[in-house]
């Protein structure tokens, strides 16, 4: 057998095409939009819950640091919500991007994933950090020696582990990007 036979074998596969009609697509787009709306509502609901709970703390707790911290946590959760919306918009490739030559499209995908992994701690952790620091500091008043290390470590250690894992994956993606750049330049 020669290479032409391989091509012939490849091209003679049984045709499994399902005709995904334009009408069906329009219906699916409507379903897709409903799914996005549902996800947006879920995210909004979570942000609302955090806002209500910590807003209530900010209003009622007697300790100043805890009150300010609670208010900052509310602001931080709203910032995260905004970023989730912003990122969701960025993640969807435009019609022009979809039709790009594959090497360029692949590179963009890798860069997007790398930047997402590098920046996730900034977008998901940092907005809540000042609020939680002040809140826990307030819990330790009037005696700072009572700082609740156990509670804070339960929050901080998983974040640190995820951060390190993300940065390592981002590093691997960077290696792939460099290899791809060499291929494109050849």
């Amino acid at each position, binding site marked *: *057998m020669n290479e032409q036979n391989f091509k012939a074998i490849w091209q003679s596969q049984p045709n499994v095409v399902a005709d995904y009609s334009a009408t069906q697509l329009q219906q699916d787009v409507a379903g897709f939009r409903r799914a996005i709306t549902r996800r947006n509502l879920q995210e909004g609901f979570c942000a609302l819950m955090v806002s209500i709970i910590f807003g209530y703390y900010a209003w009622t707790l007697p300790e100043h640091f805890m009150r300010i911290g609670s208010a900052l946590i509310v602001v931080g959760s709203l910032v995260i919500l905004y970023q989730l919306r912003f990122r969701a918009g960025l993640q969807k490739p*435009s019609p022009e991007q979809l*039709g790009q030559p594959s090497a360029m499209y692949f590179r963009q995908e890798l860069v997007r994933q790398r930047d997402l992994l590098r920046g996730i701690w900034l977008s998901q952790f940092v907005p809540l950090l000042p609020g939680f620091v002040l809140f826990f500091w307030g819990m330790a008043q009037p005696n700072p020696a009572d700082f609740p290390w156990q509670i804070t470590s339960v929050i901080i250690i998983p974040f640190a582990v995820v951060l390190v894992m993300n940065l390592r994956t981002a590093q691997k993606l960077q290696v792939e990007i460099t290899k791809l750049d060499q291929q494109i330049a050849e």
Partner: protein
Amino acid sequence: MQRPNEMTEQDRLYQKALDEYGAEIARFVTGYERNAAKRQDLLQEMQFAIWQSMLGFKQQCSLRTWVYRVAHNVGVSHIQRSMRSTEQHFADLSELEFKVDEGTELGLSERQLDFARVLQLIYSLAALDRELMLLYLEGMDALEISEITGLSTRNVATKIHRIKQLLSNQLKTGAHPHE
């Protein structure tokens, strides 16, 4: 205002693309997903992306080139997602030594065996090399592949040469499985 079942220019282009290149798109899906049950989902994802992309198609290239690009871009993203979920390693053409798992060959006809060998080779390749192999198997030349992938013609030609070597090795392995 557009009525629900009225065909737009986007719909017409999509339908044309599906009529002319539907079979090729389905074959690409086979090259990007080994699980038969998941192929249907990937095929729909590709078709959906092709439909979406038609809004950006301004005759920058031929319809075929555009459709192939979109299909492979979706395929590449699919591989990326699979890699994230399973931590698989895919080989570059330069590091691949072809191996056939003879244990999988029992009970298959010669033609099915050859097809299984080609598939096995395809599934072991990294994203861009896999795309190149699929386009080569569709009978495209280096210039056409270069237009779709964005790699230089010279680079594509080198890679095709390597693919031919791999297929040739595979042929030898298939002809003399116990040597």
